[in-house]
């Protein structure tokens, strides 16, 4: 969209490079091919994202082999990936996993694990949610960890783990006597099962631990705050991805409204369609603003509003994307309801993303809480 663009020159070049790369690497035909595979990503594209573009280690500090970039750059990259529905373990392995390791403050673990993650040779993911509970509902976590010599043994089942079947490193949280703690487990010791899902462009898995050996990361009992921060950064990144997808939906809709003719004129000439497009533009632009704000604030800890901004973006961008994708179907009429048209892939991604790192309800409740609306008992 050029109508209302906000140029930040440092980011413009990055955006262009990623867009040019994804144009070839992730056309609709590739998305459709990959979504039908078990792995759900193309290892060659992943390698190029790491080696040629240096994007896999984007947020990993240079001392651990990454690019040391901030949330703002991450948001630029995620928005582009969202536009093309790139099928890749980026959110799990390049965002959530490094975020949680870095937040843990465990230098040794970071030194051991981050270089492999940053150069793309190791795939990692973060397994948190259990049962049908929101990923943000830490009280619902019942997986246990029992000390066994210098390691721990995990028991429990994690649900809806992004790229849980392909990851070579499982970062997860479990309860010990001291409370929620972060662990790293090797997938060999876990039971992994792919889940048939609404959005096949992002693979989810069930991961079962039954005496699975794992290593404690960071301080025992200190995982809640670490996890909250990692999920917040994930939310900021996901909000950008949602914005990119919503923007692409708007473009598809506007292109179609200009070319499809009924009653002797382009359907875009009808107010009913015009108004929808105008409304979407407003929402897409607002979503961008929310996502960019959240990314900017992330790198500015003085405000103390990072969580709040992440939740504002999470809630707003989730709803804007679902709305944009649904309207794209509507504006396309019958074509929009077909399997062949990409509109449903965007709707699937949008609807599923809206639940991935905290439901809209959860985010709104956090907003209410952070601005002091929730009475304390």
């Amino acid at each position, binding site marked *: 969209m050029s109508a209302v663009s906000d140029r930040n020159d440092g980011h413009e070049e990055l955006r262009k490079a990623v867009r040019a790369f994804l144009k070839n690497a992730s056309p609709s035909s590739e998305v459709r091919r990959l979504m039908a595979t078990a792995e759900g990503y193309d290892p060659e594209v992943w390698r190029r994202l790491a080696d040629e573009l240096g994007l896999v280690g984007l947020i990993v500090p240079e001392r651990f082999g990454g690019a040391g970039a901030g949330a703002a750059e991450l948001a630029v990259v995620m928005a582009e990936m969202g536009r093309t529905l790139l099928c890749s373990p980026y959110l799990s392995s390049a965002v959530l996993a490094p975020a949680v390791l870095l937040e843990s403050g465990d230098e040794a673990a970071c030194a051991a694990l981050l270089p492999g993650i940053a150069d793309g040779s190791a795939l990692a993911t973060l397994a948190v949610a259990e049962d049908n509970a929101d990923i943000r509902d830490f009280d619902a976590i019942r997986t246990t960890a029992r000390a066994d010599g210098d390691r721990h043994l995990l028991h429990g089942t994690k649900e*809806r783990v992004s790229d849980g079947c392909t990851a070579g490193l499982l970062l997860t949280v479990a309860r010990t006597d001291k409370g929620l703690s972060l662990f790293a487990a090797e997938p060999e010791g876990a039971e992994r099962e792919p*889940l*048939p899902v*609404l959005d096949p462009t992002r693979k989810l898995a069930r991961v079962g631990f039954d005496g699975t050996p794992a290593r404690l990361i960071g301080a025992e009992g200190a995982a809640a705050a670490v996890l909250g921060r990692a999920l917040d950064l994930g939310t900021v990144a996901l909000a950008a991805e949602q914005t990119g997808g919503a923007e692409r939906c708007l473009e598809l809709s506007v292109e179609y409204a200009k070319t499809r003719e009924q009653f002797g004129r382009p359907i875009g000439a009808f107010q009913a369609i015009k108004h929808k497009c105008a409304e979407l533009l407003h929402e897409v632009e607002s979503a961008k603003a929310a996502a960019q704000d959240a990314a900017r604030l992330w790198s500015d800890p003085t405000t103390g509003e990072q969580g709040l901004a992440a939740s504002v973006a999470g809630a707003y961008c989730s709803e804007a994307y679902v709305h944009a994708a649904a309207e794209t179907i509507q504006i396309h009429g019958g074509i929009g309801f077909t399997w*062949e048209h990409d509109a449903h892939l965007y709707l699937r991604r949008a609807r599923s993303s809206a639940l991935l790192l905290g*439901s809209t309800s959860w985010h709104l409740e956090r907003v209410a809480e952070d601005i002091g609306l929730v009475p304390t008992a």
Partner: protein
Amino acid sequence: MPSATAQDTGTPSARRAHWSVRLAEFLDAHAGRPPRDKTERLAWARAFHAELQETGLAAPGWPTEAGGMGLDLADQIAYHQQMTAVRAPKHPCGLSFIVAPTLIKHGTAEQKKRFLRPLLRADEFWCQGFSEPDAGSDLTSLTTRAERAGDEYIVNGQKLWTTMAHLADWMFALIRTGPAGPGGAGISYLLIPMKSRGITVRPLKDISGGTHFSEVYFDDVRVPVENLVGEEHGGWAIARTSLGHERATAFLSDEFRFRRVVNELHRLAKTSGAANDPLVRQDLARIEASVRVLASNSRRALDAVLQGRDPGPAASVNRLVRAEFDQRLHEVALRVLGPDAVLGQREPTAPEGGRWTYGYLMSRSSTIGAGTAEIQRNTIAERVLGLPSGRKQA
């Protein structure tokens, strides 16, 4: 026809008691748990409707001459309530009830005799061949054409989005027989056997990955002239025939269904604990309010019809409101499901077999399928509010 008994029983209330007792007996004997398997379920629904027709308990609103029960509106409402209460199987081909009123009003005696009985019994399925690649909302610009050759028409062209085409025995189609002009000139209403030579049906995958509609190609398809309904070139005017009262009652089954689905959603929200979330609760309350408003609205329209008055604008907005309600309902349902809403139908732990997530995807068509929401708004603005037409002036 067994339905003749309806006339023999004197006063309207005695008559009502009569059919409703028979219907109750019938339902006792025939309704039951639907088979889980899709093919078996279809056969089960077909058998139910064949029996229903046999017993003279099908088509409450149709005139008795057409094989219906000839019930008045109040009785039709009671009939629908009785059917929904036991969750009797729906007729497996809803599209049949789009062609039926046209046949009843405009069909020849031969056509009625030939088609209505197997239609009611679900022995024969129908599909609707209206939309084409370049004629969707603007249906009068359709170009699939028929040329007269002796006592046959030769049909060439293509239809699109034809629901059930791959299962249907017959298509009721709008076909160009003359030059296009204002008011749908040059369009005829033809009944085409789907087994005809020259018809190719190409199923299309829809949003759910399943196949519910198709492309249908016509290559020199020969159709007997006796399959024309109404006048040649007069198809447009009769394509929208309905039996007045049927339209009023068609809402009812929707209504009962919405009520039931909303109740199911409430139950789900309570058992899963989703209702403890104050925000989800607000959404549920909004849905509850909507379903009640929906009901009051159609009660108003029905009351008007029952008193012989014009139901007014409420009836025209009803369909639009329902379509959008269906979408909102499913939006909220996904919020109620919680994170597991992301699971697909093939995942055994998907809540309630994935029906809500599937329904969410399918609900996107309720504002496209039978005339888009925008076109309905245009129609309301033009017909109800008298605003000028958006069509290009010729």
